[in-house]
């Protein structure tokens, strides 16, 4: 019988970036009670689309809906003492706090190490920032493009004869979210063993630099990178590249052991013996592969890959993915309600296991859980909540209100 692995754990999220958001979402899905602390104007991702056509609003955007599924929303103004007191009280009743607030602002928001340790000796903290909490760039402003640039991955992506290319949306933050998740789980294990909360610090620049495949280890040691390991666009080798097909694009990415099946798949087993001939591979063979792909649909190329066991693939679009029965069969989808579009599919459990249950509620409305959390967890009486609401300015203001914690990233 599956159970929620994180049932009984409580996580406080004080952050505005995707690294914390996505890690916390996964933890919520696996059963943790994730409380997202939002500033009075709401998390900045509420203002980031895309939005449904003609339905812009703080509950309807794709970013908010995806990254914050499964969580509860509590509005607190951490620039006010009352707000900081509440977050400390919550910390005292939680096992984990995840934050990306800039190091320079931690004290002002009551999120300094000493304050949190006093509030919750059992609380573990994972802190993720673009350059780390300490270092010469610790106070640098960052955004999704700078994060992808400064850790090395951007230099390897894009065409060699123009500017390098950023990946879709904020992949640096999304990669980092898996680090935040792993570090948080490791912290919980270590905390149980040590009898006290752990503090883990992560730099997104280091996340990026730790994942530079062969190029990193070579270059770090002064080895020159061969041309094939520099920025090379979409690849233009017969056996390593993206090709146009009848209804989109496909990929042939063939390693040595797959060459026989690949050449059989494209109907030219005799070409296997010519792979050592560079001129042939760049010229005539490249043309053969290009034409083979151009004559077929994405599905036909995939079916051939299956038939021959060859490493070919197609560039899947969102519609392909959402409708794909092979993907659905793995159990990765969950359906959640969207306020405008109704029931939609979202990626759910990143792991498949008979033992690990995973479920998601829709992303919360702004401050929807403030009263319940304060009352149920902290025993704050209803009248007092009203009073705090006045002091802390919880009335949901226009989302354009700038909140210091809200630097969009």
């Amino acid at each position: 019988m599956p159970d929620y692995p994180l049932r009984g754990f409580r996580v406080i999220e004080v952050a505005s970036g995707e690294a914390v958001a996505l890690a916390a979402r996964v933890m919520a899905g696996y059963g943790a009670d994730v409380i997202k602390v939002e500033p009075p104007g709401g998390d900045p991702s509420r203002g980031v689309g895309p939005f449904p056509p003609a339905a812009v609003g703080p509950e309807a955007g794709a970013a908010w809906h995806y990254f914050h599924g499964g969580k509860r929303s509590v509005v607190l103004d951490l620039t006010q003492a009352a707000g900081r007191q509440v977050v400390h009280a919550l910390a005292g009743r939680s096992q984990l706090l995840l934050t990306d607030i800039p190091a320079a602002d931690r004290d002002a928001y009551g999120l300094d190490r000493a304050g949190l340790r006093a509030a919750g000796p059992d609380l573990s903290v994972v802190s993720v920032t673009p350059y780390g909490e300490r270092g010469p760039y610790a106070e640098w402003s960052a955004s999704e493009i700078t994060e992808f640039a400064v850790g090395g991955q951007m230099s390897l992506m894009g065409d060699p004869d123009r500017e390098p290319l950023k990946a879709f949306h904020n992949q640096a933050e999304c990669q980092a979210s898996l680090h935040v998740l792993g570090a948080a789980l490791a912290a919980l294990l270590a905390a149980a063993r040590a009898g006290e909360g752990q503090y883990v610090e992560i730099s997104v620049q280091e996340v990026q630099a730790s994942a530079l495949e062969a190029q990193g280890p070579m270059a770090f040691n002064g080895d020159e990178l061969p041309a094939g390991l520099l920025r090379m666009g979409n690849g233009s080798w017969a056996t390593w590249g993206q090709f146009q097909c009848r209804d989109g694009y496909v990929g042939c990415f063939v390693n040595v052991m797959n060459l026989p099946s690949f050449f059989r798949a494209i109907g030219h087993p005799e070409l296997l013996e010519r792979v050592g001939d560079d001129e042939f591979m760049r010229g005539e063979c490249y043309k053969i592969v290009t034409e083979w792909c151009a004559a077929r649909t994405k599905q036909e190329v995939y079916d051939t890959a299956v038939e021959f066991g060859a490493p070919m693939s197609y560039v899947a679009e969102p519609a392909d993915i959402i409708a794909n029965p092979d993907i659905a069969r793995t159990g990765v989808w969950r359906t959640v309600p969207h306020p405008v579009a109704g029931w939609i599919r979202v990626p759910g459990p990143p792991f498949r296991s008979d033992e690990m249950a995973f479920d998601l509620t829709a992303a919360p409305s702004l401050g929807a859980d403030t009263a319940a959390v304060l009352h149920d967890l902290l025993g704050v009486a209803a009248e007092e909540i009203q009073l705090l609401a006045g002091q802390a300015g919880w009335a949901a203001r226009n989302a354009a209100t700038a909140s210091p914690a809200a630097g969009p990233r």
Partner: protein
Amino acid sequence: MSTTTPVSEDAAAADAAPLPLAGIRVVDLTMVWAGPYGTKLLADLGAEVIKIEGPARTDLTRILTIPANRDFDRPFDASRYFNEYNRNKLGMAVDVQQPAGRAIIRELAAVSDVLIENFRPGVIKRLGFGYDELKALNPRIIVVSLPGFSSYPPEASIPAYGPNIEQMGGLAYLNGYQGGPPHKSGISYGDPLAGLGGAAAVLLALLQRERTGVGQYVEVSQRNLLLGMIGDALVAHQIGSPPARNGNRSPAYAPQGVYPAAPARNATGSASASGSTGTGGSPGPGGSEPPVPGWLAVSVVTDDQWRALCQTMARDDLAADEQLATVVGRMREHDRLDAAIAGWTSGRTADDAARQLQAAGVPAAPVRAPADLPGDANLVARDFFRTLPHPEYGEIRITAPVWRFDGHRLGVRTAPKFGEHNREVLAQVLGYSADTIDALERDGVLADRPRQS
């Protein structure tokens, strides 16, 4: 370059407390990048990771990235790639084609917490290490598999590499220059994600085991992890606003882009890309290579930042242009703004430009090439690169653990030589006698050199 005191964990506490994952034993059958990247994360925190290769089954990366112009006693120990991702692990070479070799794996699994593998689906079951068999030996064992897609046919049977999985997982479609075709990532992007997912799955299963007392089997699909990285695009599609391929631009802010910068000169006088200071990367002979331009990434997120950018570039005309005062106007004029910014960045190195813009509060950073990173001031100050002794090189440079735990200075130990810890593990973990181990070596069940190397 400023040489501040290295920013690292409290060394005094280093050996007092056990490391965060001390006492967790992992049998690591993974190879190449995805699996080893994941087990690296566990080893870095003190887990006992026993990496198992075979006499005829060496990690593919051992034959890659070996410098060509040098003589090595054991070249298969000299792979840069292997050394980076397999540090902090113990290494064995066991022939699982022989019954005695398979017995060793099963005996290790019987006294381990985790077995992790990235064979093609079905292989470990054929070898006798499937979950059902192992849990009968050890109900607490956690087995993690890392298929590219899943263990379900038909996709279980397709060989899949990072670029294939990135296509099937939807990211390639969303990547690309504005107005251009889909684009592959510069690295096998899904691989480190799969490794991260594998590590997280291990840790989550360990947490669950605290409550249940038993292990479990977990499958971590690289493709499914990639879906998680583009979830907002999948939502956008379903709510009627399919995402666009924006390249370096932002759908919400302007201007944003990557702009050419002047080449930098390092201490030897030769040009290096992106203008990082310090001694890192590969200095060529002075002046003999054509200068490589740097690149600067810039994004203006608020109207205040726009004014700060104009001021830094000494472009009062742009600051005064009413049309550019809001993001809507700037988006319309993006091409013109790109030209203006490029005109400014071209006249200075990326590092100088970044410093100036950061002083004004504008998000900007140089595009670092891998060779520039050892000289990056922030990484140096944080002691991100460690120098380790190495039997073939004398010394080798490896990155530091990314998950920095207070109270621990996480060390880095050189990656294992091929078969280096065969005897140690068999004696200390399984209690084999020296005679027994000698016999296994004679029979080729153990090896300390790859066959036919």
